């Protein structure tokens, strides 16, 4: 679950929506049962949902639930088309960049009114994020917790780096403990580290860090930790804020001058490049969220750990993002939809999501199961919680943020590639984004 603006990638369109069957047949359903369809983008959670809905159908024999997975890369291109065409599912996940337009367009069931009694049991940050016009527009389904740093234990030990206490500082090199560590953690094919003479940036075999144009894992947190902002309270973009531009300049320098992160040619169009490098044992520090925890847990063949987000001049400021399950207001199955939403918002219904470690539920009482699962796996996940800090930067908001981000992404790509100077790029990106917001 990510809120990274939709990346135009072809694999998405290749994979037509993979439709999961409507749960195992042993789930009893009476004749004439209503079928409610639920659309999500996460395979792991879809599996947990199917188990959850089997239980739901046992308790509500007149309702069957079918889970449909639409791949993330394609999700928010297809969603408005399906909404416009009347072919969208009864219940569907929405992220913060996209929910405003649907709420304002009257497409969503007013959950704040219909399920008011449950609202207190959901993560407050999620409720706040998806409240608009004085009410809540969906049941908080998942929350990402805070962004943290996955690290390769062998690599940080070999370099003598403590990943728990790294601070970056754009203006005061003496206060910057992160850059020297990242340079020690970056190696070329001859085994030289990035702080040694003769280091060849054209033949890097081990990256120190994953600086890239990654909204949720990287630049929102760097901007926040530098005291900058991305959006003003009225939603307009503030990319030219000096603190914001300074954070971007630091990131671009990590890529193009310090050579401790993969080149933008690798990462601009391939959002999973860094994760794959980390999993292949070619990256030491990989800053990301709980949405990659299961991927790392399943894919890493080496010892790894989770450290708190890097600290900036303003401390550890993370973007915290949630996802809602929204009800389709145009569907004739309103009563059944509300029952399904109520189930997803209950401790029982949400417990399946956390128990297998698939994702962190936004139902507060169901969260412990998630932490317990990972503890059982020998992974300390406290850095995703308050142990990783408490300060936050607001997640993207407003009905047209998705349009704004698709307008400014190509410009940010050029900034990260080092072809457009940062100050100029921030101005261009802000202008293009604000034009799309209108």
């Amino acid at each position: 679950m990510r809120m990274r603006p939709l990346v135009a990638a072809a694999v998405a369109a290749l994979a037509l929506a993979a439709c999961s069957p409507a749960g195992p047949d042993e789930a009893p359903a009476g004749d004439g049962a209503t079928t409610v369809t639920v659309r999500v983008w996460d395979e792991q959670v879809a599996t947990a949902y199917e188990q959850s809905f089997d239980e739901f159908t046992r308790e509500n024999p007149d309702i069957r639930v079918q889970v449909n997975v639409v791949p993330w890369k394609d999700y928010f291109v297809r969603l408005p088309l399906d909404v416009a065409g009347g072919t969208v599912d009864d219940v569907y996940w929405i992220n913060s960049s996209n929910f405003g337009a649907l709420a304002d367009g009257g497409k969503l069931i007013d959950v704040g009114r219909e399920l008011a009694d449950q609202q207190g049991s959901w993560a407050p940050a999620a409720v706040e994020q998806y409240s608009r016009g004085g009410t809540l527009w969906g049941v908080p389904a998942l929350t990402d917790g805070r962004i943290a740093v996955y690290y390769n234990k062998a690599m940080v030990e070999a370099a003598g780096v403590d990943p728990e206490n790294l601070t970056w500082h754009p203006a005061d090199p003496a206060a910057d403990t992160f850059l020297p560590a990242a340079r020690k953690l970056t190696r070329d094919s001859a085994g030289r580290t990035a702080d040694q003479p003769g280091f060849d940036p054209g033949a890097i075999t081990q990256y120190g860090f994953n600086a890239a144009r990654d909204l949720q894992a990287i630049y929102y947190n760097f901007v926040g930790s530098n005291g900058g902002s991305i959006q003003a309270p009225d939603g307009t973009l503030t990319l030219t804020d000096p603190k914001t531009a300074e954070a971007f300049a630091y990131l671009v320098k990590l890529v193009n001058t310090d050579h401790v992160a993969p080149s933008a040619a690798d990462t601009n169009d391939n959002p999973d490049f860094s994760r794959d490098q980390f999993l292949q044992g070619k990256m030491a520090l990989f800053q990301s969220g709980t949405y990659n925890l299961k991927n790392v847990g399943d894919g890493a063949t080496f010892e790894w750990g989770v450290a708190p987000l890097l600290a900036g001049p303003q401390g550890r400021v993370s973007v915290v993002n949630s996802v809602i399950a929204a009800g389709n207001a145009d569907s004739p199955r309103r009563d059944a939809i509300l029952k399904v939403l109520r189930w997803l918002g209950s401790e029982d219904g949400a417990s399946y999501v956390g128990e297998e470690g698939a994702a962190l539920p936004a139902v507060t009482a169901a969260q412990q199961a998630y932490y317990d699962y990972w503890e059982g796996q020998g992974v300390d996940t406290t850095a995703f919680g308050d142990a990783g800090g408490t300060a936050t930067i607001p997640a993207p908001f407003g009905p047209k943020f998705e349009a704004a981000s698709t307008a400014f992404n190509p410009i940010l790509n050029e900034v990260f590639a080092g072809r457009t100077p940062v100050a100029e790029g921030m101005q261009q990106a802000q202008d293009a984004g604000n034009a799309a917001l209108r």
Partner: protein
Amino acid sequence: MRRRQETRTAYLLLAPSLFGIGAFLVLPILVVAVLATQRWDLIGPRTFVGFDNVVAVAADGRFVRSLLITAGFVAIVIPAQTVLGLVAALLLNRGLRGSAAFRVLYVLPWICAPLALGVMWSWVLAPTDGALNALIGRRVEWLADPVLAMPSVAAVTVWTQVGYVALFFSAGLRAIPDTVHEAAMLDGASPWQRFWRITLPLLRPTTFFVLVTQIIATFQVFDSVYALTPDGGPQGVTDVVAGRIYYEAFEQRAVGQAAVMALVLFVLLVAVTVVQQRWFARRTTYDLST
């Protein structure tokens, strides 16, 4: 009387096709024309805005630029794939052993989904861990370098289309009677002269068909370019017009402006086709007896 009956039968037989053309060609064009006068974000209500979208598109330099980029793309791809396709067809038609297998090989890329091929090539051309760079032993950013992106995308496009072009030329070559070549040989024409004076002129109908269909297809190219270089590529150098329409409709959700762009592209393609039709009509030789 009988004539009227024949006419009726003819229309009856044509009905399925006419229905198809109406439902899948004429109707969508009309819908797009209506959408061009409206503001719609796919989610909210549609509002009539008259010519506002036309004004907005005219003022958007990126659309004009994408038309120029597409024209440049066509100017690279069409000559390259036509010449290469013809060469391949000539070689295949010499009846060498294994020609049949080669014919199949050539056509394979054309029958695969362009998107899948685009994804595959984006792996081959990836700067780190890409097969091509591993082969040549140096790091080249084929798709991320503003200078190389366009030629790389064009090369992949040519590679996918050559087999299709060769297939048609191959069929065209077989339609040329051997007697014509034999007569020319008796008159002492060299192979080179025979190619320029006989083969090429007699291939005109094929050439016309191939050029018209390929120019139209290349002007509308989207999937392979999108798979190789999303977001219009580095500095927007591969921002082809179909990609621009896609971006406007589905990423910006400005359906009205995308509709205007689509109509402009439609009119341009009709114009290109009419010009080609005229040009070839005066020069095409169908009848070998003249």
